[in-house]
């Protein structure tokens, strides 16, 4: 649990407060929750995972080498109160920004890995998040490594204005170059994945996996209801809805995801068939 100790708001796993299930209301000691992949031990609902928790159960022990850890958001348009908001997000999340990037092994397979964390301003993408993910794809392309991305985000970060919107194009360029060089990109969509992230790298994976019942969409549900006056169908914009409509490859239960990733990475090993 060394990774968890370091990153979870600076507190050791033992000192983490219990988690309360939003679905059934049960209070679960943190240790039990983490041991159960952050899934409610009573009703099976998924808690949102912190980047450190995801890393802990995804990457082979000791294999993760973080890059650009110190990269922080700036305030490129001088948006009021944004600097204070960033500082608050830092101390609340124990992170410098909304994504953790690095290289790792998953089931013995080398890859570039990025994990977004909704505890930092809902995982929204400003220049720092865009820059970190771009650098990861560039590094992976230079090293001929596949990229695995765990995605959760409210979308482009409003407080950085058009600089945020342009990160969608910037990251897309890096994903394209990585792809054109014959490298694999697997996107794992988790709750919630919305707005400009859905409209860019979340939907650009060669293979797209989603956790069960994750909210995945472009427009916000309330906005759609208010704009159209229509009642949203049950299960709208959930993983199952996207699978049915042909936009994701598969839904995987959280505990199985690392094994599925290992299998897919192994199938794409670039020297596997002498290629």
């Amino acid at each position: 649990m060394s990774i968890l100790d370091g990153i979870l708001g600076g507190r050791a796993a033992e000192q983490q407060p219990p988690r309360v299930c939003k679905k059934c209301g049960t209070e679960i000691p943190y240790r039990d929750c983490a041991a159960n992949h952050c899934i409610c031990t009573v009703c099976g609902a998924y808690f949102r995972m912190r980047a450190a928790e995801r890393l802990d159960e995804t990457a082979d022990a000791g294999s993760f080498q973080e890059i650009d850890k110190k990269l922080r958001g700036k305030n490129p348009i001088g948006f009021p109160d944004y600097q204070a908001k960033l500082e608050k997000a830092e101390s609340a999340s124990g992170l410098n920004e909304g994504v953790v990037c690095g290289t790792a092994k998953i089931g013995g397979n080398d890859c570039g890995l990025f994990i977004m964390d909704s505890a930092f301003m809902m995982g929204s993408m400003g220049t720092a998040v865009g820059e970190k993910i771009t650098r990861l794809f560039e590094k992976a392309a230079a090293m001929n490594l596949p990229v695995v991305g765990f995605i959760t985000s409210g979308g482009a970060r409003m407080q950085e204005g058009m600089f945020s919107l342009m990160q969608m194009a910037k990251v897309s360029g890096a994903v394209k170059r990585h792809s054109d060089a014959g490298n694999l990109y697997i996107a794992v969509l988790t709750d919630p994945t919305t707005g400009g992230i859905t409209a860019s790298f979340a939907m650009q994976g060669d293979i797209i996996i989603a956790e069960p019942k994750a909210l995945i969409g472009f427009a916000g549900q309330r906005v759609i209801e208010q704009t159209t006056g229509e009642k949203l169908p049950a299960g709208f914009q959930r993983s199952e809805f996207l699978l049915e409509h042909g936009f994701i490859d598969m839904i995987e239960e959280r505990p199985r995801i690392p094994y599925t990733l290992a299998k897919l990475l192994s199938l794409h090993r670039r020297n596997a068939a002498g290629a």
Partner: protein
Amino acid sequence: MGQAENKTAYERVQAARSGKRPMGAYYIEHMIDDFVELHGDRRYADDPAIIGGIGYINHIPVTVIAMERGDTIEERMRRHFGCPKPEGYRKALRLMKEAEKFHRPVICLIGSSGAYCGIDAEERGQGEAIAENLFEMMGLKTPVISVVVGEGGSGGALALGVCDTAVMLENAVYSVISPEGCATILWKDASKAAEAAEHLRLTSYDLLQFGIIEKLIPEEGKSDREICSELKHFLLAEIGRLSKLSPEELLSARYEKFRKIGA
């Protein structure tokens, strides 16, 4: 600096949204000769919010992709107020690929509050359609010039905005979120949109200063025809410049244009 302060940000938002402001169809009519409209995404439908086709700008064949909201209320209903659906973005990409095949430059005209917001658009993958355009446009081996002529509404605008040269008309705006949406999130009060508009730095002057666009076409004191003529003049010069680049040089410059933003 005087020109930049002639209007408040929100006055420019209102100008960009004005029902009297020309949109895509007007620019096609006045800049492009022998325009032939091409319909449909070959997947699902034709989206009337986007007009696509080919024609000449002076004597150069170009592909034009233009958002259009329509003038009459009937036409606005038919074009769903210029907010493109996934099939609109897919039609745009199809025509851009065609332009690449025939070595035609692409001109995108942007003016819409954003991508269409509705159950059907989500069912058909609004996010995926935009994502695919961003991805493919980054590798399109023909010059792309995007012009924001009205409201450049977030991801729905960017889906036609991955380009070699980004242009804005003076009173166009380009924003990550609508000022109303921003005010609602910040202060739970959409009526503070004017204040939000200032903070978002969404005017052509702001974005030119930030290096997010390359060119601003002045409007002050000019008729629509004069603005159109100046835009055409710029497009011709820019097509000339970009057409001299090899595909590798073009794509490398396009990559760097976006790569440097927030680096």
